[in-house]
């Protein structure tokens, strides 16, 4: 099954996206954020919380704001302190938290000897590389299928989540996402330890990551099949969570360049700087990112705004390239959200899914199920999901986020998940060789629709290139939501770097990714 597409239009879209993303990079390269700095500390091996449950990494960055000069970067301060005290980063963090030490006493406005950080960075990097190798080895023996069946757990209690995840795995789920508790994206710190209280989801913490990973690894040891784990590198702690996911071997991270801006009202500079670092970390750790274009269609009409999804996919692709991420890690997102009362809705969905497939041939596309037009009618919902599953398998999507018949009612029950998995399995079997057996008729409704969406995406990308991404976001082009350059949460955490600023973690990861690529 193939659409005939105009390669000049596709090239023009990529050229525009390159301009758009590169302009943002140039504008934001002189800046860093508190969350980037906290991530550097985590990569130096700092873990734990103080007497008031404040993470040490927050304590240190806040401390440097008042007792040092954050413009030089946290690594600069740590390098001076380690060089002069010969203490480990963890000890320094504890001493600072206890008020027994001030980094200001060791700070010099000249370049420190960064090699004192090397042994600590080596440790984190070695752990991430080991985790990556483990994943690759297991997947070599038991390759991931296509599509991969992705389900969510969202009980709020990590132990209950584990029960639900293991049950889903037993029924054939390939990917488990632990939905975060509502509100976590706006926390400017990462909570600590195992948690049992959450609403509509479970806190993303390093310990929760570890517990779920351990349970899914246990499943793999017994059954041979590797079950991938997903969380959210998004919100105000985007790069920190990417780092924790890298350390604890998550396999996928929701990570969109624009989602937080549009849907969580997080400041655009903060989000774009944070996503740049978080993608470098995920790329280095071999973690597949999932972008969030599907969400645009939950607030605007999927038929009228289909081209905004394509345009955003091109932009997300370019931002991922900045992080030296190979296409095989770019889980670009889209969704099956056209109103079921529209004539030929299924054909339009096929057009969109096949278009995405052909525009990004090497990307493991993430395909989201119907949500907006799901109702309390679970029986009709099962049929909607069946059509979505057919669109998924016939257009060869990779990350198949299964729709639940109870989507509009509650976070999934164990049985909802089992029904959804059975629905998908049946359709995979029934449509196995379908895509290789049929052609899309030239000039047909499906092809015309795909051409129209691509042309509109190109026009939109031309406009964004002309006016700049910040202006586009102000205009509310994506998802019908308008955001200003200096509005939103987290702007206070953005700061301009000093000429001597260095982020040794980012530099080493980028260098390693470049080496991998060559």
């Amino acid at each position, binding site marked *: 099954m193939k659409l005939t597409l105009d390669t000049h239009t596709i090239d023009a879209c990529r050229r525009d996206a390159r301009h758009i993303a590169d302009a943002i990079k140039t504008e934001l390269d002189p800046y860093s954020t508190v969350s980037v700095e906290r991530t550097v500390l985590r990569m130096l091996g700092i873990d734990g919380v103080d007497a008031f449950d404040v993470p040490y990494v927050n304590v240190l960055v806040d401390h440097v704001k008042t007792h040092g000069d954050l413009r030089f970067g946290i690594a600069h301060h740590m390098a001076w302190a380690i060089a002069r005290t010969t203490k480990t980063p963890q000890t320094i963090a504890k001493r600072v938290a206890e008020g027994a030490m001030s980094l200001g006493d060791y700070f010099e406005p000249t370049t420190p000897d960064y090699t004192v950080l090397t042994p600590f960075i080596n440790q984190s990097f070695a752990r991430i590389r080991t985790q990556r190798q483990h994943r690759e080895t297991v997947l070599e023996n038991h390759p991931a299928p296509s599509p991969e069946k992705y389900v969510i757990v969202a009980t*709020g209690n990590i132990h209950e989540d584990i*029960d639900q995840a*293991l*049950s889903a795995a*037993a*029924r054939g789920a390939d990917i488990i996402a632990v939905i975060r*508790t*509502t*509100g976590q*994206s*706006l926390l400017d710190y990462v909570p600590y330890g195992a948690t049992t209280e959450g*609403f*509509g989801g479970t806190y993303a913490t390093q310990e929760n990551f570890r517990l779920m990973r351990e349970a899914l690894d246990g499943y793999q040891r017994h059954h041979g099949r590797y079950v991938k784990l997903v969380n959210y590198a998004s919100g105000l702690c985007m790069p920190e969570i990417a780092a924790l996911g890298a350390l604890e071997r998550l396999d996928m991270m929701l990570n969109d360049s624009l989602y937080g801006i549009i*849907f*969580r*009202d997080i400041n655009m500079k903060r989000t774009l700087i944070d996503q740049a670092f978080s993608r470098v970390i995920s790329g280095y750790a071999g973690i597949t990112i999932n972008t969030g274009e599907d969400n645009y269609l*939950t*607030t*605007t*009409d999927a038929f009228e705004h289909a081209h905004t999804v394509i345009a955003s996919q091109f932009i997300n692709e370019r931002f991922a390239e900045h992080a030296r991420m190979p296409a095989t890690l770019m889980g670009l997102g889209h969704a099956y959200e056209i*109103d079921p*009362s529209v004539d030929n809705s299924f054909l339009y969905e096929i057009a969109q899914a096949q278009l995405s497939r052909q525009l990004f041939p090497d990307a493991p596309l993430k395909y989201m199920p119907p*949500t*907006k*037009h799901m*109702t*309390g009618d679970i029986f009709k919902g099962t049929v909607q999901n069946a059509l979505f599953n057919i669109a998924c398998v016939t257009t060869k999507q990779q990350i198949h986020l299964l729709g639940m018949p109870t989507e*509009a*009612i*509650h*976070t999934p*029950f*164990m*049985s909802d998940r*089992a029904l959804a998995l059975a629905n998908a399995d049946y359709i995979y079997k029934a449509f196995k060789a379908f895509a290789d057996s049929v052609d899309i008729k030239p000039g047909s409704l499906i092809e015309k629709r795909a051409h129209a969406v691509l042309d509109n995406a190109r026009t939109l990308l031309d406009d964004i290139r002309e006016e700049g991404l910040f202006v586009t976001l102000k205009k509310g082009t994506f998802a*019908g*939501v308008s955001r200003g350059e200096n509005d939103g949460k987290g702007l206070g955490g953005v700061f301009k770097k000093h000429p001597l600023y260095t982020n040794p973690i980012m530099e080493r990861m980028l260098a390693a990714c470049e080496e991998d690529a060559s």
Partner: protein
Amino acid sequence: MKPLMRPYGDTLNDGKMQLSFTLPMEVGPKGEAVAKALCETMGVADATVVHSEALSEHFSFYILYGTLTHAVDSDAVEVRDIDTESMSKDDIEAYIDAHFDHPITFIGASTGTDAHTVGIDAIMNMKGFAGHYGLERYRHVKAINLGSQVDNETLLEEAIKHHADVILISQTVTQKDVHIHNLTAFIELLEAENRRDDFLLIIGGPRITHALAKELGYDAGFGPKKYAHDVASFAAQALVNKRSQSKR
């Protein structure tokens, strides 16, 4: 004869029902027996397990059909529903024209930690939902949508700032009754600030009913299959009623 109500399968008063649920136990004859016993306890007689399967080693899923032995007198059942008439967009605009000398200001948000905007957007945004235009599209209506994760204090501040007539609150996440706590807290805030009577208060969401809204101290509640014109009809008429009451 009393209008006694029982479920209908294919014959009046046959009481046929379908049930499905999960049990935290291994699938098998014992599980099926437990499932049937549960039905019996609910008053569902002669339950048949038409399908059972393992969800994992320790959980099993059942679909059953049975005969409900209970009946309900439908005359004795009370419904608390919106008592104002639902009008079309054109009629609402004409009604506001006739009864108000200023546009009606609606301010809306998905409050607390709730990140879902789908409900509030369906009511407020230009596009609306399922062919029903949103409040933004209405003449004589000023619609301000604050989006998601708005805390109660901010919502009240904004409502005062914009001289809102109507506050719309959307709640989608209902796990562990988080919506009840949040909605109650907003009423308490209004009362503490002595502002309860300044606004018409309307809540909405997939699990919201009018009865729940009244119980929590709101003026109205709208659940699934309610659109912008339902909300606007109620609001316009309720504001007129409120005005005539305060004049008396």
